[in-house]
């Protein structure tokens, strides 16, 4: 098992950081009137861990007996949808956005079903079941609208825990019905404590300070990534003494290469080469937004101050279009061309300006 899973805290008491938040969750779970919750924060900050720990606090160890089910839903147009559902006796966890536009049907069916059945286990601590909805920010508007009244109506049998990266895409009525719980990324010191804890538990010996610093800077607030990198480094040098350099993921170096190519030369041929590389990245399932952001990061490091704002501006614009559009590569490419032309114009502009001054 990976360290990330193996040493994941199981209860609220074991959590290392955001102590105040853990206390709050604990008091909520104990108080009897547990509200609907909405966890949000950057990835790798520990949202899922906190949800699992809260469930544990609510219902005891029984929530860890999970079974994975595949449920079939039928749309009004007789299309069959398969959804993977993880459930225990007390809760059910699903990712409705898996089925794209049909997520509303999944939400309606599941919630109605849970809402209309009562808890059969008499020894259960609470009478309600919990529905955990992952990736709530990619729910369609319809699905969110379907949640609204249900959340109020079936409060006796049902509590909803939403998990999202950002609340921007959630409609206001949902937000006003939930208790918002912000899970911020851990700070440098907090990550250090966790890494040391993992090192101790795994019997990996003492983690050298400089190595820890390096891992933490690299992870940029993503705890999961930090632990994964740590484990990888441990594999490379079991005694942790030589401190091997942090292995950047392949795609990241590849993206940097693309960025460098854009800066080196601005010609149609180069566009074609970049395009090939972008295709390569996309075909390895790297999300286009991440590609765009990483390449843009690299490019702005290398260009003149006055160009930076423009490059980010176009990155934002094309990222947005990419979401709305269908074919990602068009927009990535369009951005590349735009950046190239900006860059070239910038240089030509200066040269021409200089010439003017000369004459």
């Amino acid at each position, binding site marked *: 098992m990976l360290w990330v899973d193996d040493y994941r805290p199981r209860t609220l008491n074991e959590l290392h950081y955001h102590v105040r938040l853990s206390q*709050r969750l*604990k*008091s*909520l779970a*104990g*108080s*009897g*009137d547990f*509200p609907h919750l909405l966890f*949000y924060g*950057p990835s790798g900050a520990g949202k899922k861990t906190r949800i699992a720990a809260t469930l544990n606090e609510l219902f005891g160890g029984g929530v860890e007996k999970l079974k994975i089910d595949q449920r079939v839903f039928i749309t*009004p147009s007789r299309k069959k949808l398969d959804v993977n559902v993880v459930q225990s006796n007390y809760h059910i966890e699903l990712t409705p956005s898996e089925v794209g536009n049909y997520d509303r049907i999944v939400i*309606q069916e599941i919630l109605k079903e849970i809402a*209309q059945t*009562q808890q059969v286990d008499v020894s259960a601590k609470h009478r309600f079941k919990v529905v955990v909805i992952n990736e709530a*920010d*990619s729910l369609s*508007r*319809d699905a969110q*609208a*379907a949640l*609204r*009244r*249900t959340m*109020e*109506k079936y*409060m*006796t049998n049902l509590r909803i825990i939403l998990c999202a*990266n*950002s*609340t*921007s*895409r959630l409609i*206001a*009525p949902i*937000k*006003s*019905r*939930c208790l*918002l719980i*912000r*899970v*911020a*990324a851990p700070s440098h010191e907090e990550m250090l404590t966790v890494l040391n804890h993992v090192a101790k538990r795994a019997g990996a010996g003492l983690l050298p300070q400089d190595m820890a610093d390096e891992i933490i800077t690299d992870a*940029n*607030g993503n705890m999961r990534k930090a632990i994964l990198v740590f484990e990888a480094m441990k594999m490379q040098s079991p005694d942790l003494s030589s401190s091997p350099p942090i292995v950047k993921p392949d795609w990241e170096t590849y993206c940097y290469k693309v960025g460098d190519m854009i800066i080196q030369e601005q010609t149609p041929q180069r566009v074609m080469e970049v395009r090939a590389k972008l295709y390569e990245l996309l075909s390895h399932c790297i999300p286009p*937004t991440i590609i765009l*952001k990483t390449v843009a990061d690299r490019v*702005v490091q290398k260009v003149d*101050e006055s160009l*930076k*704002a423009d490059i*980010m*501006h176009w*990155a*934002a614009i094309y*990222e*947005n279009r990419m*979401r*709305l559009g269908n074919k990602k590569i068009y927009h990535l490419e369009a951005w590349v061309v735009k950046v190239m032309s900006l860059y070239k114009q910038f240089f030509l502009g200066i040269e021409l300006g200089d010439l003017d001054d000369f004459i």
Partner: protein
Amino acid sequence: MTANFFQARGPSKKKTGKEKESIINPSLQPWVEKYRPETIDDVSSQEHIVSVLQKTLSSTNLPHMLFYGPPGTGKTSTILALARQLFGPDNFRTRVLELNASDERGISIVREKVKNFARQTPRAETVASDGKKYPCPPYKIIILDEADSMTQDAQAALRRIMENYARITRFCLVCNYVTRIIEPLASRCSKFRFKPLDSSSARQRLGNIAAAEQVPVNQAVISTLISTSSGDLRRAITYLQSAARLSGATEPPTPIFPQDIQEIAGVFAQTVGVDVPPTQSGDEDIDMADVTPLTVKADLRGFDLIRETVKLLIREGYSASQILIQLHDIIVEHPTLTGRQKSACALTMAEADKALCDGADDELWILEVALRVHKVSHPE
């Protein structure tokens, strides 16, 4: 039996009568449900609408109605209270059909369920079990809650139904955006616009609830509740309840501070803002970086400074829409920016808002807004 039944219905009047419900322990109910107004007189801050509806109550003649307004202003509460006052608890279940977005509401449902209900002649009035007299006029009410999420086709199918059965059925459409209701439907209804609650009535209402729940709150907390919820009473009540839960769960109960409310609402704490530590109130920090003449060194690294701040902000997990709202408030009230500069800022913010609604990346757009604001406030 009757008493028991009535008790069960008492706290949650929202049932259409389809599902029978177990008795709810009132202490476990969300306060928004618990303190829903019982009669239309209890509805806060919508005097005009209440006075019109009072008249219909005495004359027992009701037009088709279209309620619209921002969330949490009492639209659903008003129509439910009105229906209850008209029919009383016993007739309520046979005379009122409530459909909302969580029910399937495609065109087929409009054709079948709504039409069937609409064409039934109302049943004879049963004697009220609680001994009160209710007007109980000879028609039924169909409440279409969240009507703006109905499809155009479904709305079109309603048109004729509304006219055909107008004698025995009244419709009440409830929605946030009146523009999403097709014109032929809107013209068949008398429109009621619900305005955002003014702060004095919201204050009074929150005070009452806090008193009834025996939660000690001071005026500062209530002011924070009102300012963070911007006229949405439901949101304010939910925040209050959450805060009360959090404070009441510890031993001994800690008093509620305005900061708690801000944390629950996901708003940056305003008080920490002024002395510019780059975390916490980063959003003021961006603005400070943009607007106040910074030291030369920081100014040279303008782009990197802004980018780092945005990164930190996103790391803290604040949502982009919240950052936009607060940045907007700061810029609009900013003392030194000119009108032209402010408009330019507003323009980018509008673009960013649209992009965020379309699901664009938070970090990129906040960065974009910050850079634009920076550029605008630093003319060369």
